[in-house]
């Protein structure tokens, strides 16, 4: 067991993937010499060279478009989008090309491209640096969409994403980059398949569904709820597309109360999909409607207000209270 920060765990995961497969490339803005603005690719260019760790021109559409070309040629590019808000110049390449090309080729083409996106708020940044754009991508068929929440998952999931023959949108909770956790880098026995959710805290009274940066928040909320005598289950979804429906539905059936928590706006957010699915399939098990906690239907506010915008322990517990009020 080694103790790694989430950022370092990603770094080690990519390093391992690059050692294992010479076709794995890293590309993005400032990923080389600087090691990325969050240092996630620190040292990789030094060890693998400029041909494999590529500081690209400043153009996100170019990054994804050329990654597609490299993938067509047999490479496995891992692209870094510097911040969530800057994935949009690449949206066309991701949505119209990356997501659809394999299907158009009747499977002849595989595009093992990973798009790493530091996501979410909570770091006091200026605008466009705190977005949660996952729903745009879960709404696009052809993309796997995952989010890691802790160092061990970061380490294993990035390698699984790179190994996947499908394009993977890989969300990294930027405010958790510096959080540390134990990672076993000597074996893969403990790895959870990339498309599986995980119950990170079993409970009986209500379920908190979350992913990425909100997993920690939900675990804290569950701890606080314990003092009120409520036993909350916390499910880290890990994969948003595909969704690990059995784990989600099983939890909902057992507890009968579900609160979905994400930083992205509630309105038309990923939580809406969860609520709909749970309602459709567990209607008679539910004690209350599925409730959602998330961002508001406003642009991400200036950082002095982000504590109001972002779900925190209190807002999660408030929703839990409401769930018990039915």
């Amino acid at each position: 067991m080694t103790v790694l920060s989430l950022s370092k765990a990603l770094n080690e995961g990519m390093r391992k993937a690059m050692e294992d497969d010479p076709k794995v490339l890293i590309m993005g803005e400032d990923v080389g010499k600087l090691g990325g603005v969050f240092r996630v690719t620190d040292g990789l260019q030094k060890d693998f060279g400029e041909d494999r760790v590529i500081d690209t021109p400043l153009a996100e559409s170019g990054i994804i478009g050329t990654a597609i070309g490299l993938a067509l040629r047999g490479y496995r590019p891992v692209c870094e989008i510097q911040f969530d808000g800057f994935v949009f110049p690449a949206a066309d390449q991701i949505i119209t090309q990356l997501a659809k090309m394999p299907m158009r080729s009747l499977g002849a083409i595989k595009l093992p491209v990973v798009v790493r996106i530091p996501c979410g708020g909570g770091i006091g940044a200026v605008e466009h640096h705190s977005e949660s754009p996952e729903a745009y991508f879960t709404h696009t068929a052809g993309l796997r969409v995952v989010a890691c929440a802790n160092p061990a998952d970061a380490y294993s999931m990035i390698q699984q994403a790179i190994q996947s023959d499908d394009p993977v949108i890989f969300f990294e909770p930027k405010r958790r980059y510096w959080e540390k956790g134990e990672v076993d880098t000597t074996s893969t026995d403990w790895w959870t398949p990339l498309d599986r959710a995980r119950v990170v805290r079993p409970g009986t009274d209500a379920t908190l569904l979350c992913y990425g940066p909100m997993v920690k928040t939900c675990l804290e909320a569950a701890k606080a709820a314990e003092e009120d005598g409520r036993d909350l289950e916390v499910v880290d979804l890990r994969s948003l597309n595909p969704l690990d429906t059995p784990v989600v539905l099983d939890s909902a059936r057992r507890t009968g109360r579900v609160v979905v928590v994400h930083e992205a706006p509630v309105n038309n957010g990923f939580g809406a999909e969860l609520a709909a699915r749970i309602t459709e399939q567990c209607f008679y098990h539910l004690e209350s409607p599925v409730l959602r906690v998330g961002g508001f239907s406003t642009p991400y506010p200036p950082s002095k207000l982000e504590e109001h915008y972002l779900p925190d322990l209190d807002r999660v517990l408030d929703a839990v209270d409401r769930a018990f009020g039915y």
Partner: protein
Amino acid sequence: MTVDASRGAEAPPELVQLLTPEGERVQHPDYDIDLTPEEVRSLYRDLVLVRRVDLEAVALQRQGELGIWASLLGQEAAQIGSGRALTDADMAFPTYREHGVAWCRDVDPLKLLGLFRGVNHGGWDPKEHNFHLYTIVIGSQTLHAVGYAMGIQRDDATAATIAYFGDGATSQGDVNESFIWASVFNAPIVFFCQNNQWAISEPLEKQTRIPLYRRASGFGFPGVRVDGNDVFACLAVTRAALKNAREGQGPTMIEAFTYRMGAHTSADDPTRYRVASELEAWKLKDPIERVKSYMFKNELADQAFIDEIEAEAEQLGADLRARCLAMPDPEPLAMFEHVYSEPHALIDEERAQYAAYLEGFER
């Protein structure tokens, strides 16, 4: 695969310069400028004051009063020279680093701090100053600037727009599209690229293999490279380009050859990717020192004037600091404002819900 690090980064003979780093006035066949002593002193004052604003902001950031700051250190001449070339009717579209241009457009520096303090996303009215909001997404504003210029054209107005962007931005699709639009529509616009040699950690050769100003010819309009640390040359070249634009002669690209003397932003550590000697070399080309030498050599100013500006700068810095610290935090419910211009049911509902939620804590 090695890349010649000097390619594209050397200042070629075409560089327009009117004032050498030593403060000597030099002639250029295509550009000249006739400045009164008063005008020279005024430019000097601008340069010193915006540097002071910048230094104060850097300090405020270090003390935790700003979340982040993008310093303009080293780029004062490019910004003041181009900014002072604008008429009131001209419209400027900045990036996030154009504090010197903001100064020329009479935007209170406090308003710039608001954005970096996280109080707002840009607290000034672009229409009041003909200075658009800062744009953080690299390159986007160049298209807005062209569209605005197309509007000017259709209004038959005597004005031009100026779009600011960096060397890194020249790689963006939006910027290249803006060149095409401007060219095809003969839009009254000046593309003002501050080539400060770096895009965060990426040196110029990661973006281009030819000098940036030469890109313009491929799009069908003139490009010119100016000494970006020479405020006279920046003023002269931008003035001429804006005049051409206003007179219907279409776009010009200006590449202001300069240097980012500080970190990319306060969150950056340039020692990880560039050598200190580079900075030392550029220090010799400082945009402020050369104007001072010129003024002294030509007896346009004496030490008393310098001291007076210094005192004014101190005052400006202290005042800015005090006003920054006094800046009120926004009210939580402010985030629901201005999302739409007309009433919006969902926003109203969420605002009411959140207000009730907050009240729950007060009870």
